[in-house]
């Protein structure tokens, strides 16, 4: 049409899901080369070094924690939960995007998820690993942590099932198990591909074992597809339930600022929000440095951005209604809690949260922003920080000032709080870096399915 800007029109066109001119071989080679052929670069080594050193810091922090006790952190009465639970919720939340991509998008037949689901699910697994440490670490007597599990014992005592922390045990362990199984099952055909392509005999043996004797026969594929869909079906409710159960840690309590019914959907939305942010933080460098722009295209980045925007708005809705209902309720405790967040000792963090989580990501409304990798990377980092701040605000401000003013306190994290947090970031980073080099970061067989060559002719 005359007068319409050609450039903008072009932007309205959806970028392709996969780059043009790809064949089965090119797809396979592009992905497997990262593992099998690409030499170890300085960049990778540097990244791994950072991750490993932080992991070492984690080892020190955890050892000291076990030796001396949970008092090395900044927690106190009334703020009995601090960084440990903030980080637990943050990591678990991040993991949800991977499962959403792997399972829900699969069931919705959103085939664009095929290039990002592998590393997203890996991200989930590593995030859950980081998260899962914290419930054990934050206990006063972690050597008895197994009492949270329902095992037949000579004491004749079961866990106390009304407690959300016990539900957490089931939710997180189910989540970890299913994610691991789902991820591994998805990898089986790709391990077979790696087995065929590997030249190093040791690698061939390992990939061979991992591929469980996959031959790629039609019978294999039939059963495989059925299993895959089944696992996706099992994983789908987990996307909603796991973080709902985690939100129950707070919603079930009577603390003003915790005890609100908006938490389950609000937490799930927030989880997907931060999860997609982490997906982008991983996807953008990976596609750039490993030449995978044809696999992970602008389409994926834009879709992720749109999901981020949508979930960010849901989170914003949550903020708004929490405030509205709190004021409208007339409950003196709720109203005070809100005023305390806005003007109390942690007010700076609250307003930073609104800025980072709510205001800054609104730039994603602009298509140009959604198409710019640097913008997307920056905003994703902002969202990750913002989501961390959200858990900080929820946990620390609510606990530090609740019902009886005589008990009010002030939480200040110690260097061990930071060290443990940084340590988990190190664990995650090291795991991702190692993952990239030994496992195909993109699902090879699913990418092949995207090619027009793969359509079955009737």
């Amino acid at each position: 049409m005359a007068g319409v800007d050609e450039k903008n029109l072009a932007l309205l066109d959806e970028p392709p899901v996969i780059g043009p001119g790809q064949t089965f071989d090119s797809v396979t080679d592009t992905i497997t080369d990262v593992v099998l052929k690409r030499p170890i670069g300085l960049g990778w080594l540097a990244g791994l070094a950072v991750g490993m050193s932080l992991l070492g810091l984690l080892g020190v922090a955890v050892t000291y924690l076990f030796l001396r006790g949970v008092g090395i952190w900044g927690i106190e009465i009334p703020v009995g939960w601090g960084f440990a639970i903030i980080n637990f919720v943050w990591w678990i939340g991040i993991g949800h995007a991977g499962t959403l991509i792997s399972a829900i998008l699969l069931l919705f037949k959103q085939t664009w998820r095929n290039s990002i689901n592998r590393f997203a699910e890996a991200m989930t697994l590593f995030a859950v690993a980081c998260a899962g440490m914290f419930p054990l670490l934050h206990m006063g007597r972690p050597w008895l942590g197994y009492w949270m599990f329902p095992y037949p014992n000579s004491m004749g005592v079961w866990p106390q099932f009304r407690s959300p922390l016990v539900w957490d045990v089931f939710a997180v362990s189910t989540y970890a198990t299913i994610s691991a199984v789902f991820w591994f099952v998805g990898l089986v055909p790709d391990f077979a591909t790696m087995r065929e392509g590997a030249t190093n005999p040791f690698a061939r043996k390992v990939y061979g074992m991992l591929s469980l004797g996959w031959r790629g026969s039609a019978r294999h594929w039939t059963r495989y597809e059925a299993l895959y869909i089944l696992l996706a079906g099992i994983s789908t409710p987990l996307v909603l339930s796991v973080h709902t159960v985690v939100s129950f840690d707070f919603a079930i309590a009577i603390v003003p600022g915790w005890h609100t019914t908006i938490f389950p959907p609000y937490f799930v939305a927030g989880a997907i929000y931060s999860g997609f942010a982490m997906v982008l933080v991983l996807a953008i460098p990976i596609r750039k440095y490993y030449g995978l722009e044809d696999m992970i295209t602008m389409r994926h980045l834009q879709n992720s951005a749109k999901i981020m925007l949508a979930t960010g708005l849901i989170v914003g809705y949550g903020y708004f209604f929490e405030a509205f209902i709190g004021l409208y309720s007339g409950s003196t405790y709720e109203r005070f809690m809100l005023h305390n967040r806005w003007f109390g000792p942690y007010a700076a963090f609250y307003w930073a949260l609104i800025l980072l989580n709510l205001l800054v990501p609104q730039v994603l409304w602009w298509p140009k922003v959604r198409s710019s990798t640097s913008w997307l990377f920056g905003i994703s980092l902002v969202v990750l920080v913002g989501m961390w701040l959200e858990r900080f605000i929820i946990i620390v401000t609510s606990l530090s000032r609740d019902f009886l003013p005589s008990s009010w306190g002030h939480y200040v994290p110690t260097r061990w709080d930071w060290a443990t947090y940084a340590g988990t970031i190190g664990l995650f980073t090291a795991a991702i870096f190692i993952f990239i080099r030994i496992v195909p970061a993109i699902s090879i067989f699913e990418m092949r399915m995207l090619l027009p060559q793969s359509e079955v002719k009737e």
Partner: protein
Amino acid sequence: MDNKSQGKSEAVCPSKLELAEVRDKLARAKSGPQYWRSLEELAQTEGFFEMVHREFPRQASVWPEGASRRDFMKLMTASMALAGLSACVKQPVEPIVPYVRQPEPIVLGIPLYFASAMPFGGYATPVLVESHEGRPTKVEGNPDHPAGVGSDVFAQASILDMYDPDRSQAVTYTGFIRSWSDFATAVKGPLNSQTAVQGAGLRILTRTVSSPTLAAQLNAVLAVYPQAKWVQYDPLSRDNVRAGAQLAFGQYVETRYALDKADTILSLDGDFLSSGYPGFLLYARQFASRRSPELKEKMSRFYMVESTPTNTGGKADHRLPVRASEVEQVARAVAAGLGVGGGSAKPEQQKFVAALVKDLQAHKGAAVVIAGDNQPPAVHALAHAMNQALGVVGATVFYTDPVEAKPQDQTAALKELVDDMNAGKVDLLLIVGGNPVYDAPADLKFGDAMGKVQLRVQHSVFQNETTDFAHWHINATHYLEQWGDARTIDGTAALIQPLIAPLYDGKSEYEFIEALTGSSASTSYEIVRTYWQGKMTGDFEPAWRRALHDGFVAGTAYPAKAVTAKSGFIPTLSPASAGDKGGAPNLEVMFRRDPTIYDGTFSNNAWLQETAKPMTSICWDNAVQMSVKTAEKLGLKTEDVVEIDVNGRKVKGGLWRTPGHPDDAVTVFLGYGRTKSGRVGTDVGFNAYALRTSDAFYFAGGKVSKVGDGYGFANPQGWQFIDQSGIPGAEDMSDRHIVRKATLEDFIKNPDFAHEGIEAPAPEFSLYTTASGEPLFQYTAAKWGMAIDMNSCIGCKTCVVACQAENNIPVVGKEQVMRGRHMNWLRVDTYYEGGAENPTAYYQPIPCQQCENAPCEVVCPVGATVHSTEGLNDMVYNRCVGTRYCSNNCPYKVRRFNFLLWQDWDTLQYKMMRNPEVSVRSRGVMEKCTYCVQRITHGRITAEKDNRKVQDGEVITACQQACPAGAITFGDLNDPNSKVSKLRADSRNYGLLEDLNTRPRTTYMAVVLNPNPELEQSERS
């Protein structure tokens, strides 16, 4: 013995050695090296090995053949050395009489109780001490004592003092360990040379003595050495009290009040409801008894003219904050109103004075005027005159002979002593208790003067600053380890009996003084007993045993003395009496005893250091207190480091802006800044004694300037105003209905005021009901509940220390308290109302509320906190994994968590001190108030054995037992006649945060104040 010696006479063959003989021989050895030598000698004796085989078959069986001397030492010394601690050693028989049971074989697990007395502040605090298996574990008040039931923080904490590992454990000479006999030998010479000069060079410095036995001993010493001097010095001097009595009556008298007979009370800076005030136990209980609003018009009204805010002033219906030096003007104005002398108050005070005078006159015969120890003699004299004018002598005020054995002007006597020392006139100085180098007035420079004395001996329980200046230091026994006596404020003599043999072979002050005159072999038991043998009439033995059993000698109370104020003495007082002066433009620096450390005596007591002080809630520090207005004027804020300059003497401390503090003044608390006080008390706070001179004992003029900031106080609570929120736009705390209060007028019109504007959800609103709405679980056995009367509570913190002692609660130290990790199960919240100038204060003890709908129970993942069939929320320590969810969910925040390992597993003395009936918690475990479940269990077992139900009053929680005001009532709610059921049914009864549907078993009685309708409640003055 070998066969060869059989049948021979004893002269040839030594008789069989008996263990007792051996021990006797060893006991006679006076010093370390002698002891070893004896053991060696014994090893050579024939018959020794036979004895060993006989008495110690197990050890003897491992005796290697041809054992060397060294092996012998190793194997045998332990058994011999521990001889003193085992039960089968024969000691001289000194029967102590227990309170309830005869001294039959101890039944393990059942404690015995012994009455005794704690010498404190020149008086005796009657105590009942619980003894487990021969060692004292808890101190209580003596419920039968005429001079006051209940306890105070110092008595509760005294058990820790006895077991304090920093106690002095040996006799030393210039720091080297010696023995008592070494000292006895060394002092003989100097004493002999004193005989020649009739003791002109002998000085004995003690604290205020009320012990009849000790006084008799000292007088005996003075009889032998007529030129010697016995000086008493107490840093919390009562010289003003004595001088006031002299002014008014021409003689020394003891003044005692009967506040239960008073309709109207006026206190002129006398903090009679604060621990450490003479007569505190009596006055707390009496005061509380008249504060029940059911008394209606008979409820007492309390006016206070106060300088430093104390918990006493917080209880006042009307409080006038003035600087300490200005109290006199107000006193004169009131006196003038009562027709005694002349004087007028400042214009802004006149309304208060007028209403006060009117009230006092309306209650002639049932009013009382109390003057504080820190006020100058004129104020005391005025108070005597006013009481006389009000016609209350013999009704609310009693005068008796002084309880102290030898009243004297202590400051003058101390000055004279220092002058003598400086002049070189003193050859032998004996210091019995006390720490004059630390707490004597700074201008006297006691340490330097002391250095000029030829031989200096100190007798003290702890080594302290004075020890460094002394030659000999004798380790004293603690009152729990010795015999003795002292007098309570009514003159009744209380006997002190030991609960355990001296832990470190200490000597009591009686044995110490006896070494000067009589034989050094006399024990305290003999000395005290001999004294009373001469005093008790009739059959001595039964009377003695009765006195030990009861805790007091019957019939020794001093009779009331008829004294009349000298006529016309008021005009002789100068309008502003000589002495302490604070005045503009200087700030007035007011010196006060510390509410938990007293005068420095208790600085090494960790329980007291960690107890949040009444009103400010500061612990582990003494703050420089100042009013908010003055701080603003000087540009200071809380936690600034300030330097106080009093006539060139300077100290630095942290500033704490204090609501209710008078303007243009600061308060400094004594007892801190110790340099030699053991691992707990050294280098804590600042030393206010460095500012204090003998001519300005209680207040002086000074300057304050800022020298830094970020001092950092450990304060579990901080200020809280019940009518403020601190956040813009937020509702204030009154909507939470934490403290419910009304005036007496309103209460009479509307007795149900405590339940207005808030309600607990109806019991039917629960998922846990049967179809007909009945709760699923019925409490048919005992249903424990507790009612705390906030009208009686005086915020003294005695219950807090009692709970700490009873339940083996650890101390965490200043840094951890700053991190919010104090471990006290029971805390007393203090809320202000009405602005920072002169607020009302409310005290609310918060134990675990034992909620029937406990939020903590639902959220524990491992079921470590469960509900008992009697309604207790039971904390199962060994199941707790430490997720702390229960604490997060507790709205009252009564749960305390062991974030680190704070219990001391290693120190031996603490193993003896701890209550064996309460588990000692390790790190990672949550703990909280259990309603003293160990006592409940005791009561239940006793009742079950007798096949009956627990009677009301049979089970008393530690806090209830300790409370001097009787504010805490515990009992069975299923018993309709129990005290707690009746209090529950009272209209004033309410549950804290009951709108959360927690259904707490601990409830509170709302506060009813009795303000004078002519003075606005909001004015408060």
